[in-house]
């Protein structure tokens, strides 16, 4: 029997009730219940089990990974702290050594194409398909003694007084000293527990993604990558038909993931549908040749966090309860990088350490749980959420999604379109393009300053 399955050995310390009688001690089934089998939940459960604690990892899907929409770019250095040799052992797709930022217009685009061998030594980012990665993480958890319990939807937290003491699913209850909510962006548990309010549409975005199967050799030729190297594109502009958000494309081993992320409020304002915007992007002349001849393997949509820094401003803990990963709001969109999985892992590590200390002390109070956000503030997760706190506001600038891409293309058109008229110096060409753009200098200065401060 795995070590995580010796049940009912621990007891909650009996507390004195107001009338002086000693409350009945309550058996617990596990030291810790982790709800949600994604990166955050699995990393937290694994760390705690490795430290000798009894942990159950409850996952709503038929198996970990099955509820996830395909995958993403994982800035994975943090995983080395938990799984040494992660990049070589985990089922990752490609190692991202090339990043392309593309300003996309209807009939032109200007790309910043950055390749650097240093990004592979050590590996900084990998593309992953979550069905594979999450299944691997779950298997590592099981090997460490975690009881992985798939196919169970937790309905609510069990709260006695102010203390979270377990979870309820259907007629069943499980009790633990600490419950970890790692149940994703929609965390109904956190909403029901009154920790998070229903997020306004402005804080959320809808992602629509296709996974297009292509032969490995075609991907290598088409994207100029060799071996297990890969590329990640970030698009801004016509990819979203001027809706706030962006497009993305990244290479897996034998497929390409491509799609758009659209801020919900702006999508509604513009009166567009997410699937139409997605189709428009995939048919764009800059994108269509990259996926030409491919086979659609997967298509779906998912809610995602647009304003992580605002979301994480609410509480991350209650007595006996901590929130990690997307459930807590740990996602960052800087316009250049979209990060979630690394922040999920970072928050999970900090939470596991704090919970480990709480278990050692037998103290599951608010104060004990608050060791988690305190520790988190000292890590890259806390620091980056603070650094990029202004990024969401900067990304609200509507000129980002149309005017600047057109201006850039006009500047380059002025340089490369040798139409037999006398040439101007670069500055003159740029000035002319700017005057023709309809942009106001004060807006550009303000946006530039905002960019410097936000990014």
């Amino acid at each position, binding site marked *: 029997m795995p070590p995580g399955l010796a049940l009912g050995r621990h007891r909650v310390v009996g507390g004195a009730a107001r009338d002086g009688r000693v409350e009945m001690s309550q058996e617990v089934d596990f030291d810790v219940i982790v709800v949600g089998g994604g990166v955050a939940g699995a990393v937290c459960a694994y760390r705690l089990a490795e430290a000798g604690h009894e942990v159950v990892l409850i996952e709503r899907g038929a*198996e970990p990974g099955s509820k996830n929409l395909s995958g993403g770019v994982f800035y994975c250095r943090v995983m080395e702290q938990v799984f040494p040799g992660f990049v070589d052992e985990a089922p990752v797709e490609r190692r991202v050594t090339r990043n392309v930022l593309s300003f996309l217009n209807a009939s032109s685009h200007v790309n910043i194409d950055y390749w650097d061998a240093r990004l592979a030594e050590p590996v900084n980012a990998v593309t992953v398909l979550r069905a594979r990665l999450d299944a691997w993480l779950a298997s590592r958890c099981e090997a460490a003694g975690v009881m992985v*319990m798939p196919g169970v939807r937790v309905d609510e937290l069990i709260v006695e007084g102010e203390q979270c003491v377990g979870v309820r*699913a259907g007629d069943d209850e*499980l009790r633990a000293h600490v419950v970890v909510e790692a149940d994703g962006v929609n965390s109904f548990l956190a909403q029901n527990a009154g920790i998070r309010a229903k997020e306004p549409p402005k804080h959320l975005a809808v992602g629509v993604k296709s996974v297009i199967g292509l032969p490995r050799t075609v991907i290598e030729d088409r994207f100029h990558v060799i071996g297990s190297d890969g590329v990640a594109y970030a698009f801004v502009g016509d990819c979203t038909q001027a809706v706030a958000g962006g497009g993305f494309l990244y290479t897996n081993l034998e497929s390409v993931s491509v799609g758009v992320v659209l801020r919900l409020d702006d999508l509604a304002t513009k009166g567009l549908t997410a699937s139409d915007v997605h189709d428009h992007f995939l048919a764009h002349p800059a994108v269509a040749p990259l996926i030409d001849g491919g086979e659609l393997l997967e298509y779906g949509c998912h809610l995602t966090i647009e304003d992580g820094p605002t979301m994480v401003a609410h509480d991350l803990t209650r007595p006996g309860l901590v929130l990690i990963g997307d459930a807590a709001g740990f996602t960052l969109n800087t316009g250049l990088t979209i990060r979630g999985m690394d922040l999920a892992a970072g928050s999970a590590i900090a939470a596991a350490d704090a919970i480990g200390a709480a278990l050692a002390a037998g103290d599951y109070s608010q104060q004990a749980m608050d060791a988690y956000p305190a520790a988190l503030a000292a890590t890259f997760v806390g620091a980056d959420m603070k650094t990029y706190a202004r990024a969401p506001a900067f990304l609200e600038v509507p000129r980002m999604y149309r005017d600047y891409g057109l201006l850039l293309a006009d500047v380059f058109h002025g340089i490369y379109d040798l139409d037999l008229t006398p040439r101007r110096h670069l500055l003159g060409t740029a000035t002319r393009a700017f005057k023709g753009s309809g942009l106001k200098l004060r807006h550009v200065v303000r946006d530039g300053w905002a960019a410097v401060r936000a990014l």
Partner: protein
Amino acid sequence: MKVVIVYTWARDGANAAVRADGTVDWRGAKMTAGEDDPAALAVAKRLAEDTGGTVVGLTIGDGDASWVLARGVGEAFSVTDVPPYADNAATARVIAAAVERIGAVDVVVMGDSKQDPGVAPAVAGHLGWTALAGLDSASAVDGRVAAVRRSATEQQTISAAPPLVLGVAAEADVDTKPGMKELLAARKRPLTTWPMGDLVDPGDDVRSTGTRKPDVVAATLFDGDPATSAAQLVAALRADGVL
């Protein structure tokens, strides 16, 4: 009666995608409990209850071996490294060898899968037992099995003496998801695993020499008022030389 319920022994056809060239892409799909497995389990439990006997589980491959343990079965066996064979006889050879290893078995019950219809009869063939397939339900009467099979026009009850292999076809999705306590209890129940090499050499799997999608047959729909549509149909049949 000692009853073996065979479960989670095939991949779910819903996880397969047919490519444009007609090849089937399983995309790493694991063995899963089929839609007939819950009905087969209900039959196995009934037979054990009727006779004061026991039910043990048997599964093969990479599926969830605890599926049956979380549904009230006290013990299970798993042949862990069995690949998903295209050849039903190869799958059956492994299951039959495992049944023999379990020993003293009276009845084997398994889902009568539409996708792999040959497995249940082939298990009986390997064991040299009687097979009853397409069953709706079964009970035990005086040491014999009374198996019920329904067709569109009649209900047939067959009485047969063990040892038997029963193929049960579900009329509806009757699975009840186990709760957390049942899942916890399942992990404490004994699960014995065997590598396939200890039991049997299943031989070579069958190989596909090529696949293609079926030819598209053109269909014409005559839509409108019945008299005109009928006239158009007759005219078309005459034009095609059918009439």
